[in-house]
């Protein structure tokens, strides 16, 4: 049975533990002279990116290559994703070439689930609309783990545009599953209409929350939200919810400052703050590759490859 990584909800604690152990192994691989292992030789990993995202795509492709897998890129930024061709047609065309995994990123929620219906390859959700971004949540959790040991019992604040954030949704799922206490901090217009069933607390007072947390996770505040009358102005947003230099100064040295990138310096995070020793944003990016290697190995390490390299073992 084909395995997928579509949502953090599909992963048990044991699964998460395995993925983190694998990540440890791949971090070590990354430090070697030749940061490459033959584990996925003969496998093909395809990036199907309908949203322009060079960073995430390169992170996945690097991960695949370091496992000696072959990669294929279908990206709207390289125009290889044709306008007018349905996702299903594109998937079936790719499938006909013999592939093992597809990493899907799309502006519409749910597309990775649809792709999983049309393809027998393993599907990885690289970000679907506002819904989920499980590998981001994995690398965020892994980064926190390397500093705090475990997430159990720690208090994490996620600050910003929760309503439109796939990172927030996946992080809430991952952090709470790992035993952390999560507080969402946002103005009323940037929270989802219903928080029923969300294992979180909510606050509109960032200053009060900052005194109590071990991790501050900032979300990108997009320019477009202003035009939708969701916040009166970016300045007002920063005054209420931005991690300004003063707010950062009040944080303890042990408090991690995180961001999924790309940052709007001066809006949700002051430029100087990104250089603080407890700002681990670049570490998050660095952890992205071994985490994605772990995911690919975990998914494709079971079952025969799509294209048999030598006609049998």
């Amino acid at each position: 049975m084909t395995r997928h990584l579509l949502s953090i909800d599909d992963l048990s604690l044991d699964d998460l533990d395995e993925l983190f152990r694998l990540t440890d192994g791949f971090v070590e691989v990354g430090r070697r002279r030749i940061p490459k292992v033959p584990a996925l030789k003969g496998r093909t990993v395809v990036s199907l990116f309908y949203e322009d995202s060079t960073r995430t795509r390169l992170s996945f492709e690097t991960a695949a290559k370091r496992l000696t897998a072959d990669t294929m890129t279908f990206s709207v930024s390289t125009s290889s994703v044709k306008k007018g061709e349905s996702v299903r047609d594109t998937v079936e065309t790719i499938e006909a070439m013999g592939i093992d995994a597809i990493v899907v990123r799309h502006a519409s929620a749910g597309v990775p689930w649809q792709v999983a219906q049309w393809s027998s390859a393993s599907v990885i959700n690289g970000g679907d609309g506002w819904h989920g971004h499980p590998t981001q949540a994995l690398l965020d959790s892994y980064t926190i783990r390397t500093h705090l040991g475990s997430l159990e019992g720690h208090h994490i604040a996620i600050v910003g545009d929760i309503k439109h954030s796939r990172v927030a949704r996946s992080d809430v799922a991952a952090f709470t599953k790992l035993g952390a206490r999560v507080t969402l901090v946002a103005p009323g217009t940037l929270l989802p209409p219903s928080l029923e069933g969300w294992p979180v607390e909510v606050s509109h007072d960032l200053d009060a929350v900052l005194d109590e947390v071990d991790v501050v996770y900032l979300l990108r505040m997009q320019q477009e939200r202003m035009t939708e009358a969701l916040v009166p102005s970016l300045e007002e947003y920063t005054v209420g919810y931005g991690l300004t230099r003063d707010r950062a100064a009040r944080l303890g040295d042990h408090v991690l400052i995180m961001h999924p990138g790309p940052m709007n310096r001066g809006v949700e995070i002051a430029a100087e703050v990104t250089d603080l020793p407890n700002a681990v944003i670049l570490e998050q990016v660095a952890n992205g590759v071994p985490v994605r290697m772990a995911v690919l190995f975990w998914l494709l390490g079971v079952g025969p490859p799509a294209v048999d390299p030598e006609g049998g073992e």
Partner: protein
Amino acid sequence: MARLVIRGGQVVDASGTRRADVAIDDGLVVEVGPSLDTDGATVLDAEDCVVTPGFVDLHTHLREPGREEAETVVTGARAAARGGYTAVVAMPNTEPTIDSVAVVSFVLAAGRGACCDVHTAAAITVGRAGEQLTPMAELAALGVRIFTDDGCGVQHDGLMRRAMEYSAPLGVILAQHCEVEQLSHGGHMHEGEWSSRLGIPGIPAEAEELMIARDVALARLTGARSHVMHLSTAGAVELVRAAKADGLPVTAEVTPHHLLLTHAEVAAFDPVFKVNPPLRTAEDVAALRAGLIDGTIDAIATDHAPHAQELKELPFDEAPCGMLGLETAFGVAVTALVVEEGQPLELVLGALSWRPAAIAGLEATHGGPVEVGRAANLTVIDPSATWMVDATDAASKSRNTPFAGRTLTGRVRHTILAGEPVVIDGRTQR
């Protein structure tokens, strides 16, 4: 055509229930009684089945003119017949809109000789653009009884008032797709627990309820006869209940899918479950069932909305709204109301047949009691048959049924249109 005898069934209609065979000749019911003579007649077996007036759908999308790849008048009528319907009212959101004599005539002509009686609604505003009223009197003279901009609601309060004032003396009904666009804009599913979890923009219940409240107030002001289409929220049921208690001439319909499915179905992101108004909460489903049971909601109307397969495979937020409904309506209604709510079959039959027939003004020929001299528009149903819905086994041209793979109770066996058996043992005859 030879004499037709429907043998061995229970006859159920608005006047009651009795064991009887029904003999039909020349398009009319000629005899109703036990053990009728079958010599020289075609016999339709109705053993363990119920013989009832054919169903009438107040709300169906036949897609012709303009979207014939999804459905045509002929294929839609066939699907209707298979679902036990002997009459349907087609919705006017076609291309071009059914808003003129020419297009009304076209649809009626296309329906002549089809497997069920095809009637058509017409738009309230030209092109459904919400700006200029259609020639309602002229269209009413062609037989149009229901006017609606279905697909959207009339947004402009002032214009809706004028439409009501103008239509009131014409003996027609203004039916509303209640949706305030300023609130629903950008939404693709019910705004609530599931939309928040899935990160999909939602349509709040208030988008429907506000327009119902407005229409009730305007109906009170103008005395117009108004009909609320596809009710979907508990609040909406309350508003109609209060309006009726006040004696206002308001009627309402509900779809089969809103009686059975909730927004939890969207969790798998299959656009088959995308519909407008959206699937809502379990509390809404309970309130809609209660509304039908206590008479607040008059009829079940399918809102049968066929779409080509590739459109329903688009990403969820890009896919068009709509579900098939004609061929599963009876099964869904029996499952929801008889099996799950313990209601009598008569409630379902009334909601599918004689009550919508009255709203559509078709009571002379459809929905009436099974008695000698009446037009033979009947359906024979097996209320306890269980069956699994097979999406590939459909008379409709499209396949977007939300009930694929689901087991339903209650199945249509035969359908007789003007004395002709157009469906026998579930198979259409032409």
